């Protein structure tokens, strides 16, 4: 897994093409398009077959609208979700540079977010664009057939974005719900019938633009024969230039578009000087043309000047940039020129492609180079260039093309390169296409040669490393460990990349087998080796494994340092792989334990957003659970409940089973905090875990939740369950669970105090080295009282007064013993409200919604939520009515 470079965009495709110098103005059509924009219609469709002047019209329109314009010229390789999204966001950024700040690194990491998440992120960013709606024009949209891309655009349109107007220029209607948009008056259409040139427009093109002297009957005849089809009119004009008998020529024209086109193309070609004819034919194999490339392909030295001349003469060329450096042939003509070339000198084709391939390879555009080499049948070069560039291309969104190239290679060339076989194996593994890795493993195994040369040994070692990672990803951990060990035994010590990869498989497998020490050792080795090898992907994966595992085991300091460093490295590299959300989640959990609630909230919220963008449901759910715990601790029970509902909805959509216990445990915690033991019990029963079942690392979260319920209920099994959880967590080395269980046991056995003190001392001894604080505060006043009796250690003493929010335990007890009020608890620890908080409190008392308060104070909704959370925290309440009553009692209102 070699470090892929940053995606490299063809900027010319984001620029509006230049309208032909003598393009005929079409005020009627422009007015219709403008009316559609003014009426706020979401979609504009310019749909007609080739040669109707669609792009020219779009360019003319874009030049005069009062909106920021984003332009994207699509090509066939864009029918790939990642590539399309990358260019689509880049195009929007040309109109609104601040847009997509969070999306771009996600796309750079090589995974397109799910359409709904991507649309949500884009809609959010578009809503913030101040310059008014962006007009985004996607040219040649007919190349797009991918359901993912269509779903994304449909999703955007159905949300009626205020910040976006989409225009599609296409040869055929896209598979979007046009009929529905039409019915809602959300669609403006310009179609072939509208694009036809009238006789007056034909006159403007041929007489005024091309200086032809044509009679009205000639014009009428031409317009009729070509049906106002501008490509035909234009070619006819070129054929007529310099003719003395235009009327006779016009009369000869008849037949289909295709026939007129090829007839006229031949006519026009035949009228060019021989060297120009040859140039046009030879360069017709190129998608895009520039002087230097044409020189390399044709062997001429003056291509740049010739291109400029052809463009000025309006001969087939479209200019792609202002500096007149890049052109392309109009697609209709390119096809015709190519078929002429094939007819006239087929033997030249391969050589021309070969030269074009070499030029592109030397000019850092490997994808085009490979396309040409394939067309030339030059498979050795295809293999060579793929070996060199496959990873870079993968990161530029060529995943689908890479597979297509692989299949286009004759089998003997595919199996010739062990390097390439292994690379494709790694790529498929990284994409999660496990079943497609196996044939490559078999193919690579067949080409492994016996021998002791460095190269042979290195090949075997990398094959074993790939196999180890594949086994590990497939859940075959013991076999993975064996293969990884074999790889590490034989790998040459200088081959750091393979050492990193094999160690990653080893660490991942040991983690799954709950062997913390061995996993940590292997992952540290993987991080070190891949870092030295410059293999950022492996380094990131190993780091994430280590950080997440450390969090699970309560190794907070290790988790924080590893996660923070990984986040920093990825941020500096402007890439956000799917694992980044999980890293933020892990760091947020650590900050929470350390009682740094603001940092925790920042990381958890970012973790949720990034995980959702990555389509990583498990990570989103897991992080939402941590966020819910934070909100609950801050007294914002509604927010906590919202997080858990969102998590439950995601779980219903599908997520691995391991996140379910965490979610249920949090739902139980929240229900108990609301004094609703019945709901808590219902959740636990629905969770399906019998509290009397043996405790292990998978059941721990649910067993702890049962223990909390037992404690509230005074269940006879409470002490036994506490002991069983303590024993299991101790044996597994899972400190967070162990501390929680000890604290619950301490509350259970508060009498005699010596028993409670023993549990507390143990919990404190475990907590101090890693800095666990929050776990003590969350247990509420009963535990705080016990700690005060014991005399809390200095590292905890200064935060104990901060534990002013009643915990679930406290709430549950309060519900059983109504005489203990929150006000009493709050009084003792009351912290004054800031001026802003007092203001927010007053508005809360007036009954304003959060949104209204945000508007009144000119702050964001999140800021209001934050203030409310602080207010509730300081007042020790969790509902608006309680806050108002409390504030009145305290004389704050």
């Amino acid at each position: 897994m070699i470090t892929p470079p940053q995606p490299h965009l063809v900027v010319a495709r984001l620029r509006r093409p230049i309208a032909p110098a003598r393009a005929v103005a079409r005020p009627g059509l422009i007015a219709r398009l403008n009316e559609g924009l003014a009426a706020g219609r979401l979609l504009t469709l310019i749909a007609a077959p080739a040669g109707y002047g669609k792009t020219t019209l779009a360019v003319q329109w874009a030049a005069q609208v009062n909106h920021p314009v984003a332009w994207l010229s699509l090509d066939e390789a864009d029918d790939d979700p990642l590539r399309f999204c990358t260019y689509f966001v880049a195009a929007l950024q040309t109109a609104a540079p601040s847009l997509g700040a969070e999306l771009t690194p996600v796309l750079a990491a090589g995974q397109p977010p799910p359409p709904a998440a991507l649309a949500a992120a884009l809609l959010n960013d578009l809503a913030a664009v101040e310059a008014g709606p962006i007009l985004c024009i996607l040219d040649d949209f007919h190349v797009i057939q991918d359901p993912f891309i269509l779903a994304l655009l449909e999703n955007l349109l159905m949300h009626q974005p205020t910040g976006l107007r989409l225009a599609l220029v296409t040869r055929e209607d896209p598979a979007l719900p046009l009929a529905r948009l039409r019915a809602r008056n959300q669609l403006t259409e310009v179609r072939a019938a509208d694009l036809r040139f009238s006789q007056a427009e034909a006159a403007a093109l041929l007489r005024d633009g091309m200086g032809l002297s044509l009679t009205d009957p000639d014009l009428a005849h031409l317009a009729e024969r070509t049906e106002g089809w501008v490509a035909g009119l234009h070619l006819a004009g070129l054929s007529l230039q310099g003719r003395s008998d235009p009327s006779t020529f016009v009369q000869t024209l008849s037949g289909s578009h295709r026939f007129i086109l090829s007839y006229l193309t031949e006519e026009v070609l035949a009228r060019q000087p021989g060297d120009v004819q040859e140039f046009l034919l030879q360069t017709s194999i190129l998608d895009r043309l520039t002087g230097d490339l044409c020189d390399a392909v044709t062997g001429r030295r003056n291509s740049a000047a010739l291109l400029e001349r052809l463009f000025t003469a309006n001969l087939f060329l479209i200019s792609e940039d202002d500096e007149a450096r890049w052109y392309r042939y109009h697609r209709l003509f390119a096809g015709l020129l190519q078929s002429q070339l094939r007819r006239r000198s087929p033997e030249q084709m391969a050589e021309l492609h070969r030269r074009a391939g070499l030029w592109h390879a030397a000019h850092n555009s490997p994808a085009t180079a490979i396309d040409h080499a394939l067309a030339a049948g030059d498979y050795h070069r295809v293999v060579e260039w793929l070996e060199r560039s496959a990873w870079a291309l993968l990161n530029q969104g060529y995943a689908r093309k890479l597979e297509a190239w692989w299949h286009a290679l004759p089998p003997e060339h595919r199996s010739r390169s062990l390097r390439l076989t292994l690379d494709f194996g790694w790529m498929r593994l990284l994409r999660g296409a496990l079943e497609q890795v196996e044939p490559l493993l078999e193919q690579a195994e067949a080409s492994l040669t016996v021998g002791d040369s460095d190269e042979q040994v290195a090949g075997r070692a990398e094959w074993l490393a790939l196999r180890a990672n594949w086994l590990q990803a497939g859940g075959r951990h013991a076999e993975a460990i064996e293969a990884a060990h074999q790889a590490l035994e034989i790998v040459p010590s200088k081959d750091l990349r393979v050492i990193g990869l094999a160690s990653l498989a080893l660490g991942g497998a040991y983690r799954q087998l709950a062997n913390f020490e061995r996993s940590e050792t292997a992952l540290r080795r993987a991080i070190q080796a891949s870092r030295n090898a410059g293999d950022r992907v492996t380094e990131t994966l190993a780091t994430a494994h280590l950080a997440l595992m450390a969090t699970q085991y309560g190794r907070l300091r290790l988790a924080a340092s590893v996660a923070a460093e990984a986040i920093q490295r990825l941020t500096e590299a402007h890439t956000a792989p799917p694992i980044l959300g999980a890293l933020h989640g892990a760091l947020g959990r650590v900050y929470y334990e350390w009682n740094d609630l603001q940092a925790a909230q920042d990381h958890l919220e970012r973790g949720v957003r990034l995980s959702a963008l990555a389509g990583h449901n498990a990570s989103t759910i897991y992080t939402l659970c941590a966020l819910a715990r934070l909100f609950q601790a801050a007294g914002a029970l509604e927010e906590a409940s919202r997080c858990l509902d969102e998590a439950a909805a995601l779980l219903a959509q599908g997520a691995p089973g391991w996140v379910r216990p965490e979610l249920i445990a949090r739902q139980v915690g929240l229900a108990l905090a609301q004094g609703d033991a019945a709901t808590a019990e219902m959740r636990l029963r629905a969770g399906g875990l019998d509290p009397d079942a043996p405790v292990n690392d998978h059941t721990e979260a649910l067993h702890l939740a049962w223990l909390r319920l037992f404690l509230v209920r005074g269940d006879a099994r409470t002490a036994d369950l506490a002991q069983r959880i303590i024993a299991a967590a101790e044996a597994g080395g899972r400190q967070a669970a162990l501390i929680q269980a000890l604290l619950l046991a301490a509350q259970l056995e508060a009498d005699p105090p010596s028993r409670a003190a023993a549990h507390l001392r143990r919990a404190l001894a475990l907590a101090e080295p890693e800095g666990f604080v929050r776990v003590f505060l969350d247990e509420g006043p009963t535990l705080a009282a016990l700690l005060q009796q014991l005399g809390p250690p200095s590292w905890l003493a200064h935060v104990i007064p901060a534990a002013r929010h009643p915990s679930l335990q406290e709430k549950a007890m309060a519900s059983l013993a109504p005489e203990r009020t929150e006000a009493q608890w709050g009084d003792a620890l009351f912290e004054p409200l800031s001026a802003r908080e007092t203001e927010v409190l007053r508005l809360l008392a007036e009954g304003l919604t959060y949104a209204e308060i945000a508007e009144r104070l000119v702050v964001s909704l999140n800021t209001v939520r934050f203030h409310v959370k602080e207010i509730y925290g300081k007042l020790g309440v969790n509902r608006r009515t309680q806050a108002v009553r409390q504030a009145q009692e305290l004389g704050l209102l």
Partner: protein
Amino acid sequence: MNAKTGAGDRRVYSIVVRGQVDEEFVAAYCPAATKMTWDGDATRLSNIHTDQAGIVGLVRHLHSLGYVVLSLES
């Protein structure tokens, strides 16, 4: 060649595909006034008022959804 056969003209098409097309599809993706009939084996979409770009897009959409196009006439 006359204007009636041109690529830019709207015509009235019918498409027959194997399998059942749902009403939701017709409402979202077919021109207004399109009629749908189902004979237990194939769906006939008729009275489709559109041009070349429209009919080609519709046929391709049906194809990409996995329908087998049995006939197309105008």
